[in-house]
């Protein structure tokens, strides 16, 4: 299966030369196999799935990790939603009080957006999930609630033997002493265990994290500890803070690598990059 990153910025999109290299679009990744396209998150990166990138399959599955704006802001600009020949399945975490339709409609309705969710021309199907297993085309998918404010899931996407894990917003270290060193006490562990590729939150520096505990994000240190405990083969550090320039991100990773011991293969997520897993 092929993984392509369309948006790796956290919180809010950025523009300008300082963030051009790693990219300024918010969360969106596609997973493709045999012409079937899975879209993970609907941040501003999703807008690029048009023209030659327009998904050719009739059915498209969009898997939302949660409904914070940086993960759904691009939905209104996702061309297939306006294509009557498309069957779009949107999967998102269930909440205790409001339906997925109702929560998505808060954004896709006036005054925030001119078109109502219910008026979209495509054949739209919404699916509420939690700790779930389901299938989409050639993919088997596991979702689990993970630690982040509000209902939020991570995804484990399996195609035959290759595994891609997507946890762009996650704070497994929330607590007095950080990540508990027993795997059964670690949020998201089941999703990441043994994955070939893990895309994981690494928004904050260690100093920033001290001021932003409970905001739902990780440091590079915690993301790599998590990856190491889960024995993933490669980790992509993502959800880059909008205030972090390309140079600053490089510095963050270099400085971490100088102090870290045995870590899994780690790289900064970069918009436009593709990975082939088999």
């Amino acid at each position, binding site marked *: 299966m092929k993984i392509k990153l369309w948006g790796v910025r956290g919180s809010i999109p950025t523009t300008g030369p300082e963030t051009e290299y790693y990219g300024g679009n918010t969360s969106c990744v596609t997973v493709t196999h045999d012409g079937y396209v899975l879209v993970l998150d609907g941040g501003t990166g999703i807008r690029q799935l048009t023209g030659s990138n327009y998904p050719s399959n009739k059915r498209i599955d969009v898997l939302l990790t949660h409904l914070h704006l940086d993960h759904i802001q691009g939905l209104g600009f996702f061309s297939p939603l306006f294509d009557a020949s498309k069957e779009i399945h949107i999967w998102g975490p*269930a*909440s*205790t009080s409001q339906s997925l339709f109702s929560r998505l409609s808060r954004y896709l309705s006036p005054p925030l957006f001119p078109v109502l969710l219910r008026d979209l021309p495509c054949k739209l199907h919404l699916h509420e999930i*939690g*700790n779930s297993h389901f299938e989409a085309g050639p993919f088997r998918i596991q979702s*689990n*609630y*993970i*630690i982040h404010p509000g*209902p939020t899931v991570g995804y484990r996407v399996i195609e035959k033997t290759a595994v891609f894990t997507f946890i762009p917003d996650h704070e497994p270290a*929330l*607590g*007095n*002493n950080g990540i*508990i060193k027993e*795997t*059964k*006490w*670690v*949020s*998201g*562990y*089941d999703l990441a265990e043994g994955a070939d590729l893990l895309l994981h939150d690494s928004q904050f520096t260690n100093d920033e994290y001290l001021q932003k505990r409970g905001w739902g994000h990780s440091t590079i240190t915690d993301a790599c500890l998590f990856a190491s405990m889960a024995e993933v083969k490669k980790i992509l550090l993502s959800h880059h803070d909008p205030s972090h320039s390309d140079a600053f991100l490089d510095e963050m990773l270099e400085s971490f690598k100088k102090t870290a011991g045995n870590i899994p293969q780690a790289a900064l997520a970069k918009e436009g990059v593709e990975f082939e897993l088999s």
Partner: protein
Amino acid sequence: MAAYEIEIILNRQLADCLSIPVFITDTAGNLIFYNEPAEEVLGQRFEETGEMPVEEWSTVFKPLDKMGNPLPPEELPLVRTLKEELPHHKSFIIESLKGQLQNISVTSYPIISRTGKFLGAVAIFWKKKNEN
């Protein structure tokens, strides 16, 4: 073993930050975590014992009523919470294995997940001043 649901993990992380004794059990009553203040009540350390089956940890102290008579298990807040999946509260006396008596208040609540699944229970012990 699969990881615990985040509602259980977050309860442990919260307990770890508190200065009052907190016990967390699974749905069968097995003790899956207790914090440092709770270690004092049990007289054992979590790092040493790990998780404890219900048969083991329920015998570590003896619950008594104000008259010093043994309390039947069905009157204990945690047992009721596990049975009814509802919060409960009660004040009583516990006698440790060393014969020490302690007045306590216990509040217990069920851990019911976002999906409505019953995952376990939490018991908070509040040590009261011993009455003469």
